[in-house]
């Protein structure tokens, strides 16, 4: 292999895209990215880019010894995969299960790789 699953995923992120894998045989999303499909054992996995919409599946506010409390959440993306992330733009305790959220890229800067965060979907 010339590129690792993480390498491809990270390259998408650096372009502002949340990528996931699709198993054509299982007809379902695979996340985190892997070299084989955990549902079929096949190495046929396609890369897709998420529309970036999802729903909060589980949420907590973690309180560090120093610094402000922060949100940690599990997000169910509409394409059928789940990932750990956090919801920004609202107070961490205001993040509720069932909240509709939209992906955006977070670029920590320095040598740290970009990672996906979410914000509430604005109501029309």
């Amino acid at each position, binding site marked *: 292999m010339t590129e690792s699953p*993480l390498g491809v995923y*990270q390259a998408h992120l650096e372009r502002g895209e949340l990528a996931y894998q699709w198993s054509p045989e299982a007809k379902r999303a695979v996340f*985190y990215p892997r070299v084989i499909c955990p549902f079929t054992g096949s190495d046929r996995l396609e890369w897709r880019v998420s529309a970036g919409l999802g729903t909060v*599946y*589980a*949420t*907590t*506010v*973690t*309180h*560090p010894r120093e610094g402000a*409390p*922060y949100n*940690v*959440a*599990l997000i169910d993306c509409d394409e059928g995969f*789940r*990932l*750990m*992330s*956090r919801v920004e733009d609202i107070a961490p*305790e205001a993040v509720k*299960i*069932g909240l509709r959220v939209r992906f955006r890229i977070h670029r*920590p800067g320095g040598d*740290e*790789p970009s*990672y996906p965060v979410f914000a509430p979907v604005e109501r029309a």
Partner: protein
Amino acid sequence: MDGLQRGSVAIVGIAESDIGAVAKDMSAIDLMAQGVHRALADCGLRLSDIDGLLCATAQSRTSGLSLAEYLGISPAFIDSTILGGSSFMFHVAHAQAALQLGLCKVAVIAYGSTQRTIGRRQASAREYNPYETPFRPFLPATAYALAASRHMHQFGTTRTQLAAVAVAAREWALLNPAAWEKKPLTIDEVLAARMISYPFTIRDICLVTDGGGAVVMTTAEHARTLIKPPVFVLGCGQAITHANISSMPDLTVTGAVQSGRAAYEMARLGPGDIDVVELYDAFTINTVLFLEDLGFCAKGEGGRFVSDGRIAPGGTMPVNTNGGGLSYCHPGMYGLFLLVEATRQLRRECSARQVADCDTAIAHGNGGVLSSQSTVILGTQATL
């Protein structure tokens, strides 16, 4: 005969090593060896009788090598499977398989940890996960808090109900002279304690202590010739559902459903037949989840089930009678202590906290972030 056979092997010797806060510069292997020595004394066997060695600790990648060298033995059967705090229940099943097959005649399972003395970070380094670590989960607490959030959302479980688990554990601990915690605890104190990861305060979370111990197992036939009443292995079951919390299929249902089903099937018993319940309570939500998943109450009912003192001393269902990981001792991989307490209860060695007329016990281990589940059902001679 295929598979593990109900009652083919027994636990014959048990011991804790020093627990709580141990002497400066004690190592995890020192504690394992101390546990082995004491557990051998408990059953009247000698180091030279051991030909099966099983062990795990977060502080040694190859603990089987380290412990065998330390003890000066070269066991015929050796297994240092490590799957988190449930490792020792897996070891029971592996030891039973080895004993049944004649791969060894006397197996000892050992554990040691000095995480309180050296610090949790030193004792068990966290692996970097590019899909989780950037979000700074305070593991394992954040993961279990996520599971609790789902349980509260789906079933209306409350923080007060979770706090009842901690209070019950404390009441049991006050009856156990070996327990770390010595003072009473109230629901209000649990709720008002320092928040760690919502809904958990520090009182919803297991202790950080040192500790270790050992369990000696042998065939049923050999067990009957030894000095203490044998505690027979009636059932074993195990299940792995994920490694990281973001890959757990349903945060309200653990692999204890499968591990419990397998253990009950082998034991030819059901939850209604179990007299003493020892569950891995790393967090208050664990007790709720495992009571449900092992069939002691319906899914979603756990919060109500643990209220009103039902699982506390004097309640109708004795759960975590040593005070649990919440109030007795939690060196990081607590499962071995569940086996020790279940055995003591069945031997009627528990003084003030003794459960009357108990002949069956369940010891349920949990590892990782609800990742590995392993259930062991034990029984006295009367259950055979």
